[in-house]
């Protein structure tokens, strides 16, 4: 009696497991499915930044934070504006108070007065995610929570991210951070919700001087693409081999 009960239980459990195993659990990834389309592969987003045009008003940072629900008063931001003041003694004085959110309203850099006659060059550099063609941050994710879309934007899956922080360490540009509310990795999305609806990203729209522009590299009539192809543009940290897709006009060797 007792042995037949055990047998019954055994069969019931094995049968139960076997029956509830869907066939799809055994499915392997087929390369044919790879092309299953998302996004639009006629689009490859790229960013163009004209350093000379930036006046350091910081409206881009303000717009980004409010558009993308990045906590306004915490020291985190998807984009920021750096100030470089180079003096005759060869020193670079660099700052980015509050990520440049409230603009640059004083000539003091980190509390230091720099006499105008000492300045050899000074300018503002907007920074954001470079949406690399070979994103190091994506490669290191242990759970597949960050990825590159077909139109070239690197996104984070907030529902899947475990918040381990590997990607934050892996990004050579320091554009990723830990979202204090969602407790996941956070980064610039080029305002994916806007650009996929034909709008400009919040920072591009906010910039009064056209210092920030977004373009489609696969469209050769796009003015941004035209500039990138025909003008002298530079990228940050090319030596890392990540193929960054944020191009700068008027880049200086001191900007890293």
């Amino acid at each position, binding site marked *: 009696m007792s042995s037949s009960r055990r047998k019954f239980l055994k069969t019931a459990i094995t049968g139960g497991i076997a029956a509830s195993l869907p066939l799809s659990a055994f499915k392997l990834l087929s390369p044919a499915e790879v092309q299953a389309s*998302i996004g639009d592969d006629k689009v490859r987003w790229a960013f163009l930044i004209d350093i000379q045009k930036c006046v350091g*008003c910081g409206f881009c940072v303000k717009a980004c934070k409010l558009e993308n629900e990045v906590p306004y008063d915490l020291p985190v931001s998807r984009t920021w504006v750096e100030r470089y003041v180079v003096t005759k003694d060869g020193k670079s004085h660099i700052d980015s108070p509050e990520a440049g959110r409230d*603009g640059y309203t004083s000539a003091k850099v980190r509390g230091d007065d720099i006499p105008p006659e000492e*300045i050899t060059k000074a300018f503002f550099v907007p920074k954001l995610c470079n949406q690399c063609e070979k994103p190091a941050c994506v490669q290191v994710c242990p759970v597949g929570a960050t990825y590159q879309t077909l139109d070239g934007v690197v996104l984070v899956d*907030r529902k*899947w991210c475990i918040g381990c922080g590997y990607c934050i360490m892996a990004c050579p540009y320091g554009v990723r951070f830990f979202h204090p509310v969602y407790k996941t990795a956070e980064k610039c999305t080029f305002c994916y*919700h806007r650009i996929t*609806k034909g709008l400009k990203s919040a920072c591009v729209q*906010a910039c009064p001087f056209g210092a920030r522009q977004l373009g489609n590299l696969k469209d050769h009539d796009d003015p941004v693409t035209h500039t990138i192809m025909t003008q002298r543009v530079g990228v940050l940290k090319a030596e890392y081999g990540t193929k960054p897709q944020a191009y700068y006009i008027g880049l200086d060797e001191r900007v890293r």
Partner: protein
Amino acid sequence: MKNHAWRPLAVVIGAVALLLLVRANVVPSDFGVNGENFTYGFHRKGSIDDWKAVQIKYKGREYCRECHEEKVTENESSPHKVIECENCHGPAIEHPDNPEKLVVDRSRGLCLRCHAFLPYPQSHRSEMPAIDPDEHNPDQACADCHNPHNPNLEAM
């Protein structure tokens, strides 16, 4: 050849089946290579829709025209036409339903973002009409004298 071989094997098969079962239930069905390749495109496809569903908050100048026509036309013919209304007034979101009113910021800091003099020759900043905030009517709001929507010096 009976129990000592089959029992562990059954355990192994059971463990693998359990693993696959758990995987099938926990991993969303839309997980797969949805990008260009496995290295960069292995993810949950629904995540893209999550990002597309983010609410648009900055509506742009044309949205304001419908109700603040006067302000928009005034602004369009001014040196400030390059500045989006929402830069100074904050995102519209669902204004005028929510929020009913947008921020009216009369602080000097708002204008000084662009107009505080900074001696930076390699930047467009040095070409802006500039003032020294400590010298130029320091205790008054800029909007007391200048019209923020059309700061025409001749019209003053």
